[in-house]
């Protein structure tokens, strides 16, 4: 067996692949955060809770209404997106004129409330959600067993990230969005309904988190703290990539997933910390993040 850096090569390839899969979740979540921050200037601390809501929505659709995975992949983000729109209208829209800190505190409080409600209702042990029959099973890659479902997660995440990037960078709607980020008053003067666009953008960002939740439901157990475990890492990803940079958050998400995966081989105890070490270094060297504009 060939060794690379003292680690058997098959194990190393396996870890790279697993890192990529986890990176897919980081990328999807940090993408939503970047979109919301870019346009609303809101640090959406409720993102993890909304990711969790997506997973729970899929579970409820299946167990209460008999609606399966594929429909949930579409319905759950719509449902959670609508709750996001309600939150934006009722609370968040009042804070745009204030400092970032207020939005951060508000969404943080909302996250705690949402998680508390789910914990009271469903407990903390988690609920099982089966992998859909079409995606169960695994490919034997020789160096590892690759579950079909994990492969699907990477592909789905890539498609989603690419589509979002294209919409924002290459379409007229995206151009409006980017223009409103630069100067909302001017865009409004051209007859664009900026407040509505802002509301829908928040809903879209939240829906992205919910898609992540549905994708995660069969892999992790569906439980109220599944989002809070992930969200801190995702924030670090956004900071490293550069706040508000779409492409930055996608690339950083995948890259950090891989870095974390490798750390799990070389120094497992540090695997929860490595991303924050990188964050500290990046902030010292490039305060605006790797892809951000100073």
């Amino acid at each position, binding site marked *: 067996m060939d060794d690379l850096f003292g680690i*058997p090569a*098959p*194990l190393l390839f*396996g*870890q790279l692949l*697993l*890192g990529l*899969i*986890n990176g897919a979740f980081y990328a999807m979540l940090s993408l939503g955060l970047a979109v919301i921050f870019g346009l609303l200037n809101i640090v959406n601390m409720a993102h993890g809770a909304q990711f969790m809501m997506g997973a729970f929505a899929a579970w409820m659709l299946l167990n209460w209404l008999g609606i399966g995975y594929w429909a949930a992949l579409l319905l759950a983000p719509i449902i959670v997106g609508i709750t996001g729109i309600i939150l934006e209208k009722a609370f968040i829209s009042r804070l745009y004129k204030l400092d970032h800190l207020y939005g951060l505190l508000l969404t943080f409080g909302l996250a705690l409330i949402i998680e*508390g409600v789910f*914990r009271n209702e469903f*407990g*903390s*042990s*988690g*609920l*099982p959600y089966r*992998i859909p029959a079409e995606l169960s099973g*695994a490919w034997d890659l020789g160096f*590892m*067993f690759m*579950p079909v*479902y*994990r492969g699907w997660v990477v592909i789905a995440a890539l498609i989603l990230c690419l589509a979002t990037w294209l919409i924002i960078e290459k379409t007229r709607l995206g151009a409006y969005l980017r223009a409103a980020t630069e100067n909302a008053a001017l865009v409004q003067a051209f007859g664009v309904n900026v407040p509505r666009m802002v509301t829908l953008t928040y809903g879209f960002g939240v829906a992205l988190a919910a898609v992540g939740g549905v994708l995660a439901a069969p*892999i*992790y*157990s569906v*439980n109220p*703290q*599944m989002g809070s*475990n*992930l969200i*801190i890492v995702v924030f670090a990803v956004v900071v490293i990539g550069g706040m508000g940079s779409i492409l930055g958050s996608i690339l950083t998400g995948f890259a950090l997933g891989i870095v974390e*995966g490798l750390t*799990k*081989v070389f120094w*497992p*105890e540090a*695997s*929860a*910390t490595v991303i924050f070490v990188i964050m500290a270094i990046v902030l010292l060297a490039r305060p605006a993040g790797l892809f951000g504009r100073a």
Partner: protein
Amino acid sequence: MHLGRRALLATGAAAGAVTALPTLSRAQAANTIRIGVMTDMSGMYRDNTGPTSVACTRMAAQEFGNRGFAVEVIEADHQNRPDVGANLARQWYDQGIDLIIDVPTSSVGLAVNQVAREKNKPYINVGSATADLTGAQCGPSTVHWAYDTWMLARSNGGATVKAGGDTWFFITADYAFGHALERDTMNFVRQAGGRILGSVRTPFPGTTDFSSFLLQAQSSRAKVIGLANAGADTQTCVKQAAEFGLTRRGIKLASLLLFINDVHGLGLQTAQGLTCTETFYWDLNDRSRAFARRVIQRTPTNYPNMIHAGCYSGTLHFLKAIADMGVPAAKASGLDLVNRMKAMPTDDEAFGPGSIRPDGRRICPSFLFEVKKPEESRGPWDYLKLVQETPAAEAFRPVGEGGCALIRA
């Protein structure tokens, strides 16, 4: 109106932040025994401990009835943080709480143990697993009630090696509990002639994906993967081991600490065939079923496990000891009270007869269970079948081997 609403919000927030105990008059206080249940109300161990622990403690207090003194039960969330637990324990004991009970998460359990020893106050740990509570870190006023890592390791580890699983790789939660469970199980595996091929320590809390670690375990070519973790960590490991085809390749998972609530979360389809060691199972005999029926009335969505039953059993025994020696004497010295508890045999519906050793270890039989196949399960929460019983005298670490200073003295 705007101002009025703000004022209202501020008042509400302030009221929520105050955690002061209800004040009792001096005469009332002298005749009221106060029990503090410190537990995980918001984290991953909530279903294994949490509100059901509180419910069982309250149930014990109510069933004990009024025998010349009143009993008050309060609860708090330690958030699985040792600093929060230790501060709260200090505050509670200083405010006249007579007993702290439950305290899951070994790192917190040990921190509270320090405070109990410093203040010489009764402390019944039920939720933590580390056998150090009655070993190197034993305290004169501490009783460890339901289970510990040594007892889990003996029952599950020994049986697994005997069944042919002689090479092991450990996936270990990187804190006091995981370390203790790994250490104790390794000893039994080696004693039984097995070999340890490696181990990996996973950050706690905060590890959401165990596939990397499982892959490392697989490439070690061990026949058994020992899961020295608990709650959601164990559940994720079991799920992902199935997903990555480890179990199909004949690798056996040894879930060293698995509660019935975890089995419920996993579903029988995924959990079938796993083994677990408990000192209590609701469907063990008529007495345990009668006990469980009363608990379920209080917590219909969560059946009691050995921690919950331990909170009931421990509270009941504590109150019996107070009734035996009288409230003034019990309040005067926590140490005398715990010594009285140690001198009296324990007996209740949940566990049957047992006793407390001088090192604080309560002993009772332990049971090795296997998780049923879906088609074997006949009703709600009918999940486990008995494989083997270990008598009380052999289930726990022999009293002289733990290194407890109370024994050498």
